[in-house]
């Protein structure tokens, strides 16, 4: 008996001492191969009588199982060691830079226009557009600005040479879209009209091209109170602040009556004007953000609607200016320079799609 247990101890010791897979294989062949010692012992079981096998079989089977298990364990250990060694040899410098591609961006004006469209969609305003090259009827006359009206001098208009009796110009505001909308559709109307507008003006806060968004509501029983609510609601949603305070000032636009200019209160925070709070509070002030009013009856009439039946309000605001106030740029000219550094800093990710659930700002 002790012969087999000695053999077992010797084989297992040899197996555990094997330091290469080849050495282990040689041991396997020596023990379990065709002519191996364990194989030889197993062969002796065949001719034995059942009684003898009952007595001598179990130690031999135990030997076989133990050696087989030892071989498998050792093989796994050696393979693991080999893999570990291989992986250790494959170490690279993970601090090397990964190739980070360039980053695209959405222009702040586009982003803010999307924000505005989202807010006004919730208020039931659809989007309307019109040509940028307009005739003077849509840009001025229909808006109650006759030829000699001083308001025409207020707009520094870009004109094209006269052709076929029609005076063509670059629209000075998005208001002609009001006219086109009222002439082509039936009230009730709720639209916003964003787009490029042009005035012959150039300094840090004026560029010859900029962006406006126009709003128009025509319905029955619409009053200045609705205008006030709409602007308050819109500005609160846009700046995502509940402490937005508006100051409405009587003003004059030929196409609205009464006309109202809208200032929004700001507070100085670290030298920056931050929208929110009462502009009359110490350290505060007012910034003009909107022009608006009740649509002049003459404008409604010019569009072929009955002003005794339909009435409404209109407003217009600078998209670039809203972007500046919300996101803190201070030079309008940079908006149109295409400077990649500026676009990277002030631009937005493609995935910053304004949503009401996620907040329109980014």
């Amino acid at each position, binding site marked *: 008996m002790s012969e087999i247990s000695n053999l077992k101890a010797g084989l297992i010791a040899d197996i555990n001492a094997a330091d290469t897979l080849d050495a282990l294989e040689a041991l396997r062949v020596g023990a379990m191969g065709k002519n191996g010692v364990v194989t030889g012992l197993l062969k002796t079981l065949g001719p034995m009588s059942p009684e003898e096998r009952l007595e001598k079989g179990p130690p031999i089977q135990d030997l076989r199982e133990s050696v087989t298990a030892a071989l498998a364990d050792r093989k796994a250990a050696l393979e693991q060691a080999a893999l570990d060694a291989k992986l250790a040899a494959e170490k690279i410098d993970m601090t090397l830079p990964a*190739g980070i591609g*360039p*980053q*695209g*961006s*959405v222009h702040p004006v*586009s982003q803010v226009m999307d924000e505005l*469209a989202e807010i006004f*969609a919730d*208020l039931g*305003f*659809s*989007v*309307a*557009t019109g*040509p*940028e*090259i307009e005739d003077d009827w849509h840009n001025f006359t229909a808006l109650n600005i006759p*030829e*000699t*009206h*001083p*308001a025409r*001098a207020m707009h520094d208009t*870009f004109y*094209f*040479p006269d052709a076929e009796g029609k005076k063509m110009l670059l629209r000075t505001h998005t208001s002609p879209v009001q006219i086109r909308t009222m002439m082509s559709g039936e009230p009730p109307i*709720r639209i916003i009209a964003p787009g490029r507008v*042009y005035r012959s*003006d150039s300094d840090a806060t004026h560029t*010859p*091209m900029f962006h406006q968004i126009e709003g128009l509501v025509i319905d029955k029983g619409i009053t*200045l*109170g609705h205008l*006030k*609510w709409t602007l308050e609601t819109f500005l609160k949603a846009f700046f995502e602040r509940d402490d937005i305070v508006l100051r*409405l*000032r*009587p*003003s*004059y636009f030929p196409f609205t*009556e*009464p006309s*109202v200019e809208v200032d929004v209160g700001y507070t100085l925070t670290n030298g920056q004007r931050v929208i929110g709070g009462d502009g009359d509070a110490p350290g505060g002030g007012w910034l003009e953000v909107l022009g608006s009013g*009740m649509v*002049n*009856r003459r404008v409604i009439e010019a569009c072929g609607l009955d002003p005794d039946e339909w009435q409404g309000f209109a407003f217009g605001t600078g998209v670039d200016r809203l972007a500046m106030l919300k996101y803190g740029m201070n030079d309008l000219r940079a*908006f*149109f*320079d*295409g*400077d*990649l550094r500026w*676009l*990277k800093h002030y*631009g*937005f*990710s*493609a995935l910053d*799609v304004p949503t009401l659930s996620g907040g329109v700002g980014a």
Partner: protein
Amino acid sequence: MKFTLSWLKTHLATDADLPTILKGLTNIGLEVEGVENPADKLAPFRIARVLTAEPHPQADKLQVLTVDAGDGPLQVVCGAPNARAGLVGVFGTEGAVVPVNGMVLKKTAIRGVESNGMMCSFRELELGEDHEGIIELNADSPVGEVYARWAGLDDPVIDVSITPNRQDCMGVRGIARDLAAAGLGTLNPIIVPTVEGVRPGPDVRVEDEDGCPAFFARTVQGVTNGQSPEWMARRLKAIGQKPISTLVDITNYLMIDLGRPLHVYDMATLKGPLTARKGKSGEEVLALNGKTYTVDETMTVIADDEAVHDIGGIMGGEHSGATDATTDVLIECAYFTPERIAVTGQKLGLTSDARGRFERGVDPAFLDDGLSIATDLVVKLCGGTPSQATRAGEPPVANKIVRYEPSQCLALAGVYVRDDEQKRILESLGFGVEGHDATFEYEDGMPVTTPAHWSVSVPSWRRDVDGWPDLVEEVVRIVGLDQVPSTPLPRAPGVARPTATAEQLVERRVRRTAAARDLAEAINWSFISEKEAASVGGGDWTLANPISEDLKVMRPSLLPGLLSATRRNMDRGAASVRLFEVGRRYFAEKERATIGFVLAGEKTPRGWQTGKAQAFSAFDAKAEVLALLAAAGAPVANLQSFGEASGAYHPGQSGTLRLGPKVVLAEFGVLHPSLAKQFGLTGTVVAGEIFLDAIPAKRKSGFMRAPYAPPALQAVKRDFAFVVDEAVEADALVRAVKGADKKAIVDARLFDVFVGPGVDEGRKSLAIEVTLQPGEKSFSQDELDAISAAVVKAAEKLGGTLRG
């Protein structure tokens, strides 16, 4: 429009303090643009008496003074030649800031002698140009008093912005009237003196009744022109008007005070009667601003027998203006037609305070009174005797009556204002209100009801008011817009519905796709230079009055703007530029929505993995174009590749993608080297434009997709290589191969192009991977052979031979 608080108070009796008045002004639509009290910066300067004056021991031109500014003697070193004992002047103590240069006065030693402040000149206090010596006040001036307060300089200057409809507020009186209506005081009655003329009025005539319907005038003979009285000069100076002479100052003062422009002629310079007539083409007039203007027959002028003396309602002539030597004057008080003034002013590029008022429309009922007030002032301040008034023409006083129902205030403005309050407001603004009760009558047997309403007569100075909404506006602005209740717009039930237009959705998708593909969005000018426009085919719209030559032609392509931006970025050291813009191109017939992009510089920078920096190729442009077209919803698989991109591109390395042969959806490629050079760009620049308006709108047919189940059997791939003539376009071969068995072949992808050994000169080898999708059962060998044969046959039609 600037005025001072004390000036306002000559018309408005009020206890309101300055902040209340400022807030009131803005609330009623007279926006305060600024307010400044000149006394603020002069607060530390007091009236002081020089007690002693001794020569400075170390300097000839300096004196050592002892000065009493109310707190006992102080030693001061002074260099003014007029400094002497007994002089009463203005003294700045230690800590005061000298207005003219911002210097802070400190206790100091001048040439070894202690000095405790400064005796000041007018210039140092920014009160004038005089710097000959220190200020000398009357000897009885109160020593120790703050000088500015004593001198009447403690008078805030208020600057308000007047909207174009409010000519009545181009005078201090109009502003006072508005404030009184708003409850901030009482409007003082205007005093119109009775002027007894001692001789007939001057011979003035109106020929151009359209341009100048009324020309009233008086003369004053025997005047002495000189310096205006202190109160008038001080007020004019405070608002930035330079006092000139009494006669001129009177006209300026009344223009600011009452919004009534006037003109004074020196009668000695006139030959014959003064006539308001149309200008004659080529006539010249040297205006008071020293410039010569050429008038034409659309303009109204005031002329005598020999010359034009006034560009009617805008600016007087230099030669006939009042001077110190003037003894006899003619005072003009006329009404010029606003529309004509506006056109004339624009044509001449001439602005003036008078134009600003006539253009808005002065009060046509105030000619007589204005002339009397002016004449009276001239007589009182300059002496002389007045003539009677000559009244040529008739001012267009409208006498408008507006029908108004007080309920219209609530209907339009959404705010309820009691009838009696509305009446009070309108009357305090000068409107007349006559009430009519509701009536009920029969007309031809039909009952006709007329609701209660008012007949509101519009004051002559409110040219802007002609309908009931104007009256609502008057009531609401005086009541205050803060009284208008915020009223929610009715909301449609349910969740807000989508509102964006199809075009807008396409623009949004391409914009965000481009940004996601690592391009940065730029917004470039819609107008470019003529040269730039010419380089991309020329523009259809050229501005008549561009702001500069660089911004003159409406762009027919987005490329010039993008290339200029690229250039600017390169100049700033950018190694790689990837820009896009979404915007319109402008053509005679329409404006076309477009997305354009430019890729320039390095596609990938040099890197430890990638080696040298890589440049962009035409296929980078193609990749962007295809991705953007797909995002825009274009049927990308059905598009055909053509050459024939515009001249902006390299003729051999560019192309177009079309839907059918005519509808071009996009063009792209390597920029033509000469165009790149024109924009100062070196290296390969690639670009593309997608014409968004040419993309057919996607038909929306609900959200349901076509039914689909992935095929059960795996697709089989087979490779083919064909040798074709070099002229054969790869796309043609791929399409031919794909069309060889439309049922089995679901895809064909070109994966290799080879020219070289083993391929004949002038030929190329194109390798294509064909994907075959079995249906219900796997392909048999026979079927596969048949498909292969069809593929080879299709290639042969293009002259392709299967490569062995």
